[in-house]
């Protein structure tokens, strides 16, 4: 394999990682600060993608539709938090899993009623639909955009958490919730904001993934499993962990799919190499997770 192809695969890995980071950041934030396992995180991703697809023809402009969809998703998140989740904070994780699994079913049916059962159309904006020439490498322009948006979100979250008062409360909440409450912080408001932020990030991930992937009912569950792998590797509750975990998963998954079949072909015949390569490539990230957990049981960057 030549250097250019390897570079392209590296870029593919980074880009997949960044897309996973957009999902993982919200999930890990909610879990770390609110101690809430939110299986419905994938549903907000789906809602973000559907809202973007629905708003592009109305607003006639992808960036505008994306911003509107992200804000709407955050608002829906705020409402769901107030209606369904607020009473669950004091319950154990199993109750939260049950309730948020119920939310998955609810959102899937709701989307099916509103948009129909057939996947709907969402393409990148015309300006980003083609490829860009990067030193002789033709790379899809929209994938580069995903990369840029992901990096921007990482910087934004770092600024928010490290430099603002809200970020300080978030960090304090993640470290010792009882103490923050005792100091008179309105935890109810803080939790609502954090949950809305998490939902907005999931909506952004959905809006960015929509033009690349199928916008269909149940799309959230497909990516949710990968997202959980990411935050377990990164350390639950840590944004830095989510970033590192997402990039690791993205690169290991991409490289596994790119390199394993050809590596196996050197030692066995093509048919069995294809089968073995495909089987092992699909296991690669779970092997990675097992190795990380064996060495660091709380993930790479445990929150506290």
């Amino acid at each position: 394999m030549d250097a250019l192809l390897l570079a392209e695969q590296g870029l593919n890995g980074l880009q997949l990682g960044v897309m996973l980071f957009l999902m993982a950041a919200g999930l890990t934030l909610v879990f770390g600060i609110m101690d809430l396992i939110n299986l419905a995180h994938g549903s907000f991703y789906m809602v973000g993608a559907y809202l973007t697809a629905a708003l592009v023809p109305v607003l006639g402009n992808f960036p505008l539709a994306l911003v509107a969809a992200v804000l709407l998703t955050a608002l829906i998140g705020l409402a769901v938090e107030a209606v369904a989740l607020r009473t669950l904070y004091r319950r154990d994780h199993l109750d939260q899993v049950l309730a948020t699994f119920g939310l998955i079913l609810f959102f899937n049916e709701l989307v099916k009623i509103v948009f129909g059962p057939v996947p709907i159309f969402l393409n990148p904006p015309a300006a980003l639909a083609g490829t860009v020439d990067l030193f002789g490498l033709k790379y899809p322009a929209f994938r580069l955009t995903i990369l840029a948006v992901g990096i921007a979100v990482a910087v934004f979250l770092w600024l928010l958490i490290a430099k603002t008062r809200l970020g300080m409360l978030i960090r304090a909440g993640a470290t010792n919730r009882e103490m923050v409450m005792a100091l008179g912080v309105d935890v109810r408001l803080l939790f609502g904001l954090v949950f809305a932020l998490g939902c907005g990030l999931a909506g952004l991930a959905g809006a960015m993934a929509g033009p690349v992937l199928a916008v269909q009912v149940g799309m959230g569950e497909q990516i949710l499993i990968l997202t959980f792998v990411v935050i377990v590797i990164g350390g639950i509750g840590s944004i830095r962990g989510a970033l590192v975990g997402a990039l690791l998963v993205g690169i290991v998954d991409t490289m596994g799919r790119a390199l394993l079949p050809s590596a196996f072909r050197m030692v066995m015949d093509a048919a069995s190499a294809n089968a073995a390569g495909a089987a092992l490539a699909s296991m690669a990230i779970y092997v990675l997770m097992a190795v990380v957990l064996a060495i660091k049981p709380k993930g790479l960057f445990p929150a506290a």
Partner: protein
Amino acid sequence: MTRKLLPLASALALLATPVMAEPLKIGLITTLSGPGAGLGIDIRDGFALALEQKGGKLGGQDTQVFEADDQQKPDVAVGLANRMVERDRVQVVTGIVWSNLALALMPTLAGAQTFFISPNAGPSQLAGAQCNPYFFNAAYQNDQIHEAVGQHVQDKGHKKVYLMAPNYPAGKDALAGFKRFYKGDVAGEVYTQVGQLDYAAELAQLKAAAPDAVYVFYPGGMGINFIKQYEQAGLKGAVPLFGPGFSFDQDILAAVGAAALGVKNSAQWSPDLDNPANKAFVAAFKAKYGRIPSMYAAQGYDSALLIDAAVKGVGGELKDKDKLRAAFKTAKVPSVRGEFTFNNNHYPIHNIYLREVVAGPDGAITNKTVATVFANHADAYAKDCPMK
């Protein structure tokens, strides 16, 4: 006097009425929720349209349809089938979309002597050595569709084809079916994870292998992911893409739009197929549901017509299973795909067409028939089936 005669008279009256044939009961088990729901809903709607056109009576018989959602899960489908054969006493079950569900249901239905009319699933197992007297497929045998593209790609003189499919039995069958008729070199044969979202890594490898054509089998959401990413990687204009009809049918075209334009694919049916039955069907379906029918809708419609013809053939007498089977086998179905006959394994022998994805006159993306690849094509497994 009159009083005494009354019971006698009513008894006579009872004897005089002809023996009422039992009502026709059909179990429609299909996928109505989850990511695969679009296909099941189309089958249901196609079936319902035919039933409505027959005035609610298939074969002139009062018809009761028991509809249920299998959630694309084999265990759920088997549970529903058990309930329908034991409690509801259905004589026919149809609706099944997926091959693995069809295989799971077969023992239950055969054991209960209930006919299974598949409107889509056409696994090789039920076509070959494990063919079943209670199974009829009203759609196709899976391999037939892939074989047709293999033949077309061979005819077009492509010499170096790159193959991709999900890593599961239907994916392997797909590529095997393609290679049965394509004789050139294989530039690469790649199996990806079932449900895979991102194909960037595979597309980069594909580009590096520089094939002169690509054949992929990606149903449902995987197909949408792949087609979008194939175009975005700049491959669409560069390397021609081919696939089976179910990777480029109406359910997928609506979601990918122009990215699929120009792709050649194969099926036993197309919305523009020129025969009176099809024209009437497509117009009626559009009028009733406001969308272009998919091949699944056409197959659901055909399944209802098959049941109609068979029940008519036995004059509504559903008890004698051998007679009913013979009626299914020889049924003259005014199918929307044109004429077809059943092979010894109860799979159709029919034409397979080459279609091209085009923008219709109203701008809607759809398929257009461009050629007949195989006339009266039988599947490759019938010879292993012991049925005559």
